[in-house]
């Protein structure tokens, strides 16, 4: 009796394990199918996110701070007026050190008036007191480990297989947890829709073969964008990361951004 009972329980356990292993891929398929049905994205029908891998690169050396990218982004995506930005430009001014201070540079000054949309005012420091200055365009960092996705209580924000981190506005409950969790200040609560919002890489454009509005309009080619799965050999993106030593913002947080920068400084966060 004892033997048959233990045998039966062993068989049951084994069967359960087998069923579990078999159920795993089925469950994944079901989950993927359900996600495809439920998730709302601005992509056209027929767009297959598994066939693309988007990458954004920013060459801070080239940015002239004209603000066209930030303005075109607002217009393209209907971003409300006021302190709401999917992308913006920061200006870093590094003054010369005070004589005898023993420092290599003075205290950095950073500004981004109205996100840089209208350009930047004249510098308050005389030119001869400035060591150097530069502009840094900022946007969603398309993290491979996005903290915003991790904390969303309803799964309204998610990372698409093509690398874009998106928000389903019909699902978002507006708790702002993701805004708090984003280390880059890239998210905001839209005051009109009361849902979270951020750069989508102009998902409605890139899924139709176009480039994001900010990339399209940049006169200095400081922003480069492409699909790593279908990148021509002579693409500027290819040249960019072949030529430059690239870095990401706040690497110590382990978010693994897919927005790569060249020409940053230690002061940029």
């Amino acid at each position, binding site marked *: 009796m004892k033997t048959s009972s233990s045998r039966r329980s062993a068989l049951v356990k084994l069967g359960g394990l087998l069923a579990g292993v078999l159920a795993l891929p089925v469950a994944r398929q079901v989950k993927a199918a359900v996600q495809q049905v439920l998730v709302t994205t601005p992509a056209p029908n027929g767009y297959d996110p598994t066939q693309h891998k988007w990458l954004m690169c920013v060459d801070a050396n080239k940015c002239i701070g004209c603000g066209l990218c930030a303005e075109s982004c607002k217009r393209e995506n209907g971003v*409300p*007026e*006021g*302190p*709401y*930005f999917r992308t*913006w430009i*920061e200006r870093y001014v590094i003054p010369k050190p005070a004589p005898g201070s023993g420092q290599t540079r003075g205290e950095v*000054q*950073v*500004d*981004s008036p*109205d*996100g840089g949309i209208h350009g930047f005012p004249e510098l308050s420091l005389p030119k001869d007191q400035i060591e150097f200055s530069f502009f840094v365009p*900022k946007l969603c960092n398309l993290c491979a480990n996005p*903290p915003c996705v*991790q*904390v*969303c*209580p*309803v*799964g*309204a924000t998610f990372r698409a297989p093509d690398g874009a981190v998106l928000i389903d506005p019909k*699902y*978002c*409950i*507006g*708790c*702002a*947890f993701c*805004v*708090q*969790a*984003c*280390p*880059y*200040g*890239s*998210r*905001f*609560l839209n*005051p*009109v*829709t*009361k*849902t979270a919002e951020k750069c989508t890489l102009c998902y409605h454009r890139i899924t139709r073969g176009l480039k994001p509005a900010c990339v399209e309009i940049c006169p200095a080619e400081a922003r480069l964008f492409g699909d790593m799965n279908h990148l021509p050999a002579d693409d500027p993106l290819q040249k960019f990361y072949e030529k430059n030593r690239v870095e990401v913002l706040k690497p*110590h*947080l382990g978010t693994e951004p897919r927005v790569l920068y060249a020409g940053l400084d230690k002061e940029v*966060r």
Partner: protein
Amino acid sequence: MLGEMTNIVVEALPQVEGYVFPNETIPHPLWSTLIVVYPYITGLVAGAFIMASLVRVFKVKALEPVYRLSMLTALAFLLCATLPLLCHLGHPERCYEIMMTPHLTSPMAVFGFVYAWYLMAVLLLELWFDFRLDFVHWAKITPGLQGTLYRALTLGVTDVSASSVGLDMKMGRILSIVGIPSAFLLHGYVGFIFGSIKANPWWGNVLMPIMFILSAIVSGIALCVFVYQFLTWLRRQTVDMNCLDAMAMFLFYALVVDAVVEGLDVLHRGFAAEEGFAVMQTMIREKLFYTLNVGQITLGTLLPLLMLGSLQLLRRRVPEAARRTMIFFSGALILLGVLCMRWNVVMGGQFFSKSLRGVMSYKMEFAGQEGWLVSAIIMCLPVVILTILVKLFLSERLPVTEPPLPGHSKP
């Protein structure tokens, strides 16, 4: 319409010092007074429950007079615990999605389940087992609607035999044992909501859930002290000094542990002095000076520690009236101090930019969605509910039924 609205928004921008990310220059903090009230209420629930379990699980006889009061206090506050979250949402009508399609890596989603478990499986069930015998008796002696209510609350189980009552007590004890980790989980998760945000150096801290649990225990016991003394004063009864002294003792030791852990946190931050330490110093010295140094540390921790500590040493020499006063004020000060702690955590994390280059000053709104008024109303609501619960279940007119003599089934 849109233009008009955004103009208003632009006019109400906060004062900014240094550089803050453009998206952070919003007129009001994202998480305002409602999110301060939310962990405060949840903490009071967890603390009041732990206080009650001292009687149930650890058999602290001296605390028996406040057992039922603390359980009802926990229930009153638990019923309101999700209200601040709900009012804060941009789309409260979608709140059910947290339970329907939860995203299980999110502390906020899991909180929904922990809350439901704690309310349904622990607190309500334990209260039912505690009160069932009384419900049966009260249903017989109370006329009218109130009697019908007691009858309904028996859920049809009117067996008052010794074995049945013994089972009630056994179940109550089991639930109480399950309830302690549940209460820790409930409030630990609230702490994790903040502790899990690595983007914010003020919040992202492994000690955060532990600090939240400890401060919850402290605030819960303080609330029970406060409510018990207030109720006896209201009913012109005499305070059971044995019980009050025991509460004061537990309050003191809980406060010591809490203060030590929070002190450790400050020491560690100071010693590690990681990125963002400079901005934290600004917070402590300027932005949170009154709520942290005065409210949380001096009034909410040191002063009660001094009063309660001296009572532990000199209990016999302090006259009863003075002891009552000292314990009452300690409780009230701790309640204030823990509220300040919640404020310092929640608001402190939003007074500086994630660029770590600047700080923001907000003008807190009064009547808006996240204004003072809504928070104040939500804070008053548990008190109103507790008043009703006390009138219904701790009424002086209704005798508490002594359980039948110990039988073989009594634990």
